[in-house]
C-alpha cells in the first residue's frame, strides 16, 4: 500500500509541474537527457560501447561466432539480441531468466537493428547454407534511471559501429570491420495525462500512462515502433511522436 501511496504523491508532483510546462529535472518536454558514448569499452568483445543517458548507464557488447544460417536465409548472418535487466541496476529488476520487461526491451532494440537494416547481413555469410557469423548483441543495464529502450539502442548501434569481425581468429580470412550500413535510432516518449515527454526518467516512466518508441533511419523513414503501458494514444499523438522521433533521432545519430 505504501508503495502505491508514494507513486500517487510522485504522480501528483510530476503532473503539477507538467501543467506549468516543467519537468522534474528542468528539461523541456521534447528534450532528451545529456548523452555520452564511449566506444570500445570492453576489449574482450568484438564491439562495445558504454553509454550514459542522464543517469541511465548501459554497456553493450557485441560478440561474433561462426555458426549455421537459418534455412530460409542461407546467405545471411544471424542476429541475436539479449537484454540483461538485473538487480545490479535497480531495485525494480529481479534475478532469474529474462522477464517480459527485458524481453520487450531486447526485442524492440533487435527490431530496430533488424528492420532498420543496420548491418549488411549478407556480408556476414562465410559459405552459403553452411557457415555464417552469428552476431550476439548483449545489452547490460548497469544503472537504471528510465528509458532503457533508447539507451540500449544507442549503445547497441555504437557497439556495432565499433565492431570488427574476428575472421582471423576463426581461420576465416582477414578481420574486417562489421559492415554497418544504416544507423536506426529509437526515440521514446511517454504520455502523462495529456502531456507528451521524450526520454523519460524512471520517475516519469512509473507515473506514465503510456509509452511509445519510434525508430527511424537516416532518411527519416520508420523501421520499428512499440507502444507500451496501459494507457492510450490518440492517432494525432502518435503522429506527433513520430515527428519528434525523426527530429531527435537525427540529432542522436550525429553523436554516435
Amino acid at each position: 500500500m505504501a508503495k502505491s501511496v508514494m507513486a500517487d504523491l510522485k504522480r501528483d508532483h510530476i503532473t503539477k509541474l507538467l501543467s506549468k510546462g516543467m519537468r522534474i529535472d528542468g528539461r523541456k518536454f521534447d528534450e532528451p537527457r545529456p548523452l555520452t558514448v564511449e566506444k570500445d569499452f570492453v576489449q574482450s568483445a568484438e564491439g562495445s560501447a558504454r553509454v550514459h543517458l542522464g543517469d541511465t548507464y548501459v554497456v553493450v557488447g557485441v560478440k561474433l561466432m561462426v555458426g549455421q544460417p537459418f534455412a530460409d536465409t542461407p546467405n545471411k548472418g544471424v542476429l541475436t539480441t539479449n537484454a540483461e535487466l538485473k538487480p545490479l541496476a535497480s531495485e525494480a529488476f529481479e534475478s532469474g531468466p529474462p522477464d517480459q520487461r527485458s524481453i520487450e526491451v531486447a526485442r524492440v532494440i533487435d527490431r530496430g537493428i533488424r528492420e532498420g537494416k543496420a548491418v549488411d547481413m549478407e556480408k556476414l555469410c562465410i559459405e552459403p547454407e553452411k557457415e555464417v557469423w552469428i552476431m550476439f548483441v548483449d545489452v547490460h543495464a548497469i544503472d537504471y534511471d528510465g528509458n532503457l529502450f533508447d539507451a540500449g539502442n544507442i549503445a547497441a548501434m555504437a557497439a556495432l559501429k565499433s565492431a570488427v569481425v574476428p575472421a582471423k581468429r576463426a581461420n576465416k580470412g582477414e578481420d574486417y570491420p562489421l559492415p554497418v550500413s544504416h544507423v536506426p535510432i529509437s526515440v521514446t516518449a511517454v504520455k502523462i495525462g495529456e502531456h507528451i515527454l521524450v526520454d523519460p526518467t524512471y520517475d516519469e516512466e512509473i507515473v506514465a500512462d503510456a509509452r511509445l518508441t519510434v525508430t527511424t533511419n537516416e532518411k527519416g523513414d520508420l523501421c520499428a515502433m512499440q507502444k507500451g503501458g496501459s494507457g492510450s494514444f490518440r492517432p494525432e499523438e502518435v503522429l506527433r511522436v513520430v515527428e519528434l522521433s525523426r527530429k531527435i533521432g537525427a540529432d542522436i545519430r550525429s553523436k554516435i
Partner: protein
Amino acid sequence: MGGTPLPDGIKLIDENGKRLDGRRPDELRPLKIEAGVLKRANGSAYLEWGPNKVMAAVYGPRECHPRHMQDPTKALVQCHYNMASFSVDDRKRPGPDRRSQEISKITSEALTHVVFTEFFPKTSIDVYIEVLQASAGTRCAGLTAASVALADAGIPMRDLVASCAAGKIDDTVVLDLGKEEDNFGQADIPVGYIPRNDEIVLLQMDGDLTADQFKTGLNMAIEACKKIYEVQRDALKRKYTLPAGRNGEGAEVN
C-alpha cells in the same frame, strides 16, 4: 518483415490491383466470431479470421496468485498468448517463447485500458489466448477475441478493443496481411483501437515506411477496426439474444 525477395515471377499485387488471395488493398479477410463457447471459462470467444483459428478464455476476477503480485487498488489483467505446437508449418516447441511473451505483455496492457480494474482490487483477471491455426495477424485476432471473451465473462468494460494490422507490400499500403504477404512484405503495423474514444491501445510496427505511408496505414487499420468492432458486438448480441450452440453460426464480416 524479412524483406526476403519473392520467388521469381510472383507479385503480391497483380496488374488489376488484386492481392494473391484476390482481395483489394483495403479488404479484410473473412472474419467470424462466436461468443461463449466454453463451459469452464467465465467467458470465451472463438474466432476464425481467414485461416486463423483462435480461442480466447477468461477466468476471473479471482484471487491473485502469487500474493505479492496483488494490487490493493485494482485488478491485474494478465494475458497469456500461446500458439499450439501444430498451429504453424514447422512444429513449435510447446511453452512460451520470447515472441509470445512480448505479445502477452502488450495484449495485457491493451486490455487493462478497457477493464474497470478498480472495481476488483487484489484480484486477477486471466485471459488465455490459444492460437490453434496461425496465418499472419494472430496477435490482432487474439486481442479481438479476448475483448469479446471479457465481455462474455460479464466483466465491466469501458468498451471493446478491436484490432487489425495494416502493412506494405509491393510498395503499396494494404490491410490485414496474409501469410505470404507477411513473409515477403515490406512492413506490418498491428493496431488495437477503441472506436468510441478514438484511442490506440496497441501499436507496433516493423519494416520500412515513410511517415506518409505510416499515416495511411494507421488510418486504414483504424477504419478496419471500426468494422471489426461491429462483428464483435454482433457476436455478443447473438449470444445474448439467440440460443447459442456449438454449431451455431457466429457473427461474420465479408
